[in-house]
């Protein structure tokens, strides 16, 4: 039954052109391409793809509807398990999840599940405007607070709203979305077209949002529980504090965290001339790190006109970024300086970055993470001339919530400790996403948010 054809390629913006703009790189499938790609699915009896999806989307079922051409039904099937399909279809690491476990991938190429999900979500969004408004579910009278409007908070809020809870999301920034808004660039995840629309569908369910509320400072968790009438609180505040290298010269003018660089460009829209927020324009930029954030920062700098080099201490195979992102970065002209680690940032006489001293690395024995650990090659120091250095080494957790909420248990890294289903050490306080796991992915955070919604529902039903 399954159509034995090659995977249908997806159309993309020409690398030379897109290296100079912030338009989306990937155009996605059209209806014809989507139906053709859907025809490749074997509709396995025991679908491994579903098992490896953190939110358990019924993948073969929605693909079967795509094949039949019933895109609305396909959308309804996805919506049972995911509230942000247009986003996940774009930024999930499908190659290690659904597509990574697709049986077709054993001998050939897996079904392009991510691109199909994206097609279904985009098709729905583009064709349902002005259509029937989604009904607000009947209220059960209980209020729940969600702290943080990133992926885990949004998933949690969405599920709770569907169960009839009155949900208010508190967001510290002036715009909703968390990392989807401040972190992931426009060329990978368009804000107006995709993120804002997908958030709107959440507000259509009756979810309220209060921006500019930095919980821990503006209001405490205890205030929310004791004074504002919330029966439970979900903490989905992520891991937002940038890590630096701790090498000499890191506070020179021209050294930035990837968080700062990306926030200025994405949240504050500094790439747009109409924006009041400045961004540093450099001729040459080095980015330290090999993850998705490093790729995002590098490709942003490239689009702002810089000559960009990524510095990573391991080899190409070990790059933690998605293969697709590395491939796109290379196509666009980002250079890679692998097996290299910065040792010192060099400044000019006025304290502005003029270079970065690096040391060559070689791979030794595997470390506790299973990756071969890089060792410096003695005496191999060399200097890369650059005007700016962007540090993309990961993030850690802001301890503010833990510090301002008595008896909320954390581990040594500041992560909130949860037991059972997302419950913290405080009754009525639940947590999920990066604030529990440490920096991870959008979809894992969403999965945690959904688990928390179920746990909160049980907790409230038992008590009230």
């Amino acid at each position, binding site marked *: 039954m399954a159509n034995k054809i090659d995977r249908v390629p997806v159309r993309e913006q020409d690398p030379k052109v897109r290296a100079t703009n912030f338009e989306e790189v990937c155009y996605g499938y059209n209806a014809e391409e989507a139906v053709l790609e859907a025809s490749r699915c074997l509709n396995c009896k025991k679908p491994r793809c579903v098992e490896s999806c953190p939110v358990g989307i019924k993948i073969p079922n929605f693909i079967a509807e795509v094949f039949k051409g019933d895109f609305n039904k396909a959308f309804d099937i996805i919506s049972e398990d995911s509230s942000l399909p247009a986003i996940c279809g774009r930024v999930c690491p499908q190659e290690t999840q659904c597509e990574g476990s697709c049986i077709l991938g054993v001998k050939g190429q897996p079904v392009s599940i991510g691109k199909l999900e994206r097609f279904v979500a985009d098709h729905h969004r583009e064709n349902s405007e002005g259509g029937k408004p989604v009904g607000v579910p009947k209220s059960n009278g209980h209020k729940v607070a969600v702290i943080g409007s990133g992926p885990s908070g949004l998933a949690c809020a969405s599920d709770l709203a569907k169960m009839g809870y009155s949900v208010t999301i508190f967001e510290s920034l002036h715009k909703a979305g968390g990392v989807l808004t401040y972190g992931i660039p426009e060329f990978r995840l368009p804000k107006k077209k995709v993120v804002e629309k997908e958030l709107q569908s959440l507000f259509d369910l009756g979810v309220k949002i209060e921006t500019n509320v930095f919980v821990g400072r503006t209001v405490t968790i205890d205030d929310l529980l004791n004074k504002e009438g919330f029966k439970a609180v979900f903490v989905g505040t992520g891991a937002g504090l940038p890590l630096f290298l701790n090498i000499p010269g890191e506070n020179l003018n021209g050294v930035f965290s990837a968080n700062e660089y990306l926030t200025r460009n994405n949240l504050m829209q500094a790439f747009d001339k109409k924006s*009041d927020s400045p961004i540093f324009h450099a001729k040459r930029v080095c980015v330290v790190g090999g993850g998705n954030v490093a790729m995002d920062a590098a490709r942003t700098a490239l689009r702002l006109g810089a000559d960009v080099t990524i510095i990573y201490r391991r080899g190409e195979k070990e790059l933690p970024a998605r293969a697709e992102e590395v491939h796109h970065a290379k196509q666009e002209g980002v250079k890679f300086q692998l097996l290299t680690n910065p040792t010192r940032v060099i400044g000019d006489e006025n304290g502005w970055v003029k270079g970065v001293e690096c040391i060559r690395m070689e791979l030794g024995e595997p470390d506790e993470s299973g990756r071969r650990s890089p060792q410096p090659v003695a005496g191999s120091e060399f200097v890369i001339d650059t005007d700016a250095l962007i540090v993309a080494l990961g993030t850690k957790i802001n301890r503010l919530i833990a510090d301002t909420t008595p008896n909320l248990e954390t581990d040594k890294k500041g992560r909130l400790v949860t037991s059972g289903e997302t419950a913290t050490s405080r009754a009525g306080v639940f947590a999920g996403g990066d604030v529990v796991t440490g920096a991870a992915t959008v979809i894992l955070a969403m999965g945690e948010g959904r688990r928390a919604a179920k746990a909160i529902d049980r907790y409230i039903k038992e008590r009230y």
Partner: protein
Amino acid sequence: MYKILKKEQLTPLIFSMEVEAPRIAQSAKPGQFLIVRCGEMGERVPLTICDFDREKGTVRIVIQIAGVSSNKVCSLSEGDSLTDITGPLGKPSDFMDFTPDSLKHSHYLFVAGGVGAAPVYPQAKYLHSLGAKVDVIIGARNKDLIIMEEEMKKVCTNLFICTDDGTKGEKGNVTVLMERLVNEGNKYDMCVAIGPMIMMKFATLMAKKCNLPIIVSLNTLMVDGTGMCGACRVSVGGKTMFACVDGPEFNGYDVDFDEALRRQTLYRKEEQQADAEAGLNFLVRK
């Protein structure tokens, strides 16, 4: 929205605004700051909190036109609204951890440079209300930059004014007055200096000379103000700190002021260009 209930022009370039922001008014403490934004493409501008009224649900901000973004805020009128206000941000002043009783007999010296009088005000007001002895120095380049004189008088024991050009109060800068007050035999438990970075640097040097402990409040560059971007990093006692979440107040002795001064110039070129495009060429950036 955050409605401006009252706007006053304090000097040709400095404005005071009372703004509706009930949540911030409820939780603000002396030493903290906030961030405002004006317009959909507006920059996030960190500002000090000058005063708050928990019952009315308002905060008072004092802002000096120093570039495109502050000019946009200052162009708003009573009845208009700011697009966003976030806060309170940063840690409250150290003395907020002390019991009111232990502060009753303390003697504080506040040194305010220019608009620095605004954040000094709630600190002096709080300590004065507890019965502490509070001396305040307000200094500026000239008389047009001296603000809040009358209000400050009501919340301190002694107020001293000085200007670089002698157009108001004593001629000379704040450090001259600091030294004189110490030499006159005043035994201060703590000095708190808030103003331009360069003024805080020299106030700290004078404090060292006078063997006076000193706290400074750093007005670094910032984006989010919640610890996310690291633009505000500053070396304190040889360690990198984030002014937004670890501060804004630090022990002056430990702050690397030269680095902090240099880091403030990061976007000078972009700012000058934006000033020129907006017709704000009269602003002098050092």
